[in-house]
């Protein structure tokens, strides 16, 4: 083999090795982190952790209000953010004429997705809690998170809509369908898997948020479950945050166990999304 070919091959191997390392590194870090959390959480890992309310004694404390709160807040958030996000993206992609207005909106969307979550918290506090007078309740929290999640859902939906080939739109239009018929019967069904992925991604983000909720009024020590939209509430991250700030070692075990529950919930949601997507792909009608 001539020397240049040999050199080219060596370089190729080197690049391959670097890329492999880059791919493995985050996996290893994640694995290490998980292991660390599991070890720390071990003392608190018991079934009653899921069914108990917080307590001054770490050993009898549980994450129930956080779990229920998280599920409720996140469901509400999804209910608010997904339709609005999908609708807005559909309008921008399928109906709005390209022009200065659309460009302006798109630019702002990209910016919104990058705004720190604490800013949303402040916005939520001013807008929902004080101005709209919703109080420090479940709804105010969900609305705030919905604001945060909206750009994510919107951008993901937009990307999903952009993957729908124009040939399908043209095919439907040429058959004498209206814009709305094309969008609702052809474009959206085709983009649905992508839209769902975006929605789950956004909602997962909401699941992990703490700061904006703390601002809007979630409290870490709640000994009852929310009963109405303006009930005081807590979520898992907020509860974990509360435990972490306690000095006793037992509470940090609780915090670690909380993280495990949070991660499991997220994994569960992602898995559900995966299954849903696969099923939609297979049988989209």
């Amino acid at each position, binding site marked *: 083999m001539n020397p240049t070919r040999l050199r080219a091959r060596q370089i190729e191997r080197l690049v391959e090795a670097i890329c492999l390392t880059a791919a493995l590194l985050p996996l290893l870090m994640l694995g290490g982190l998980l292991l660390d959390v599991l070890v720390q959480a071990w003392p608190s890992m018991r079934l009653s952790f899921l069914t108990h309310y917080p307590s001054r004694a770490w050993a009898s404390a549980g994450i129930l209000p956080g779990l229920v709160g998280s599920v409720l807040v996140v469901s509400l958030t999804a209910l608010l953010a997904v339709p609005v996000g999908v609708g807005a993206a559909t309008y921008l992609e399928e109906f709005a004429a390209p022009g200065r207005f659309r460009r302006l909106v798109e630019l702002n969307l990209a910016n919104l997705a990058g705004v720190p979550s604490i800013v949303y918290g402040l916005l939520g506090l001013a807008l929902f809690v004080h101005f709209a007078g919703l109080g420090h309740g479940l709804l105010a929290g969900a609305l705030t998170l919905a604001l945060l999640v909206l750009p994510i859902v919107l951008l993901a939906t937009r990307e999903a809509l952009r993957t729908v080939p124009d040939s399908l739109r043209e095919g439907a239009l040429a058959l004498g*369908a209206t814009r709305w018929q094309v969008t609702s019967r052809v474009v959206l069904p*085709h983009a649905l898997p992508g839209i769902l992925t975006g929605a789950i991604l956004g909602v997962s983000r909401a699941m992990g948020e703490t700061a904006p909720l703390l601002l809007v009024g979630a409290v870490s020590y709640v000994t009852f479950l929310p009963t109405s939209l303006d009930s005081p509430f807590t979520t898992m991250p907020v509860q974990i945050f509360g435990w972490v700030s306690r000095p006793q070692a037992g509470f940090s075990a609780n915090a670690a166990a909380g993280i495990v529950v949070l991660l499991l919930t997220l994994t569960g949601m992602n898995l559900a999304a995966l299954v849903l997507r696969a099923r939609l792909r297979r049988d989209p009608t």
Partner: protein
Amino acid sequence: MTAPRLHVHKLRAGFGGKEVLHDLELEIAAGTVTAIIGPSGCGKSTFIRTLNRMHELVGGAWVKGRVLLDEQDLYASDVDPVLLRRRVGMVFQKPNPFPSMSIRDNVVAGLRLTGTLSRGQTEAIAERALRQAALWDEVKDRLDDPGAALSGGQQQRLCIARALAVDPQVLLMDEPCSALDPIATARIEDLIHSLRGRYTIVLVTHSMQQAARVSERTAFLLRGELVEVDDTRKIFTKPNDRRTEDYITGRFG
């Protein structure tokens, strides 16, 4: 319903400040196959899209002049382009069956999309359109299979069936065979021959041989101008215009 004639009068079209079609004047007789040939970028596709008002769907697109379908001007203010497109069907370069729909659903998609499909009609309409598109025998046992599972040539015939199911009077075909192999192409051409008379067909094609094979009239477009339109036999044996001659003999330059 009988096939209408088309009369293109002083047609100009373009995008923004750019004029793509300059003052086209063209008469298309009822029930004939007319081929539009010309080099890439000559405005063939733009032209065919002005005939079902698909052109105006692109941002900044504009049209001036008239296109008469029998006596009706397609660009009159009281014409709804959506309804017009049910009378003027279109088949595209790349077969574009709806991937999420079965073969049967693809065929009736036009009717279903527009909400004009009444229950119980589906089977009959699907069969009629598939037979017309010479696809029935190949798919009658698997109407529930996804449309995307068919071969390229079958997909294209499925798209033709889909266009025919809406019961149009005019069929526009924009390079319908450019993605197909010669056998699939021959099937489509055979199909075009069988549709002649019932529909007025306008075919854009890159293949002069195809134009020569399937059309009765051929129009040669060059840089948005209609250089020559004549009987296909005449165009391919003795065109009048020097530019047509140069183009079809490959002396373009």
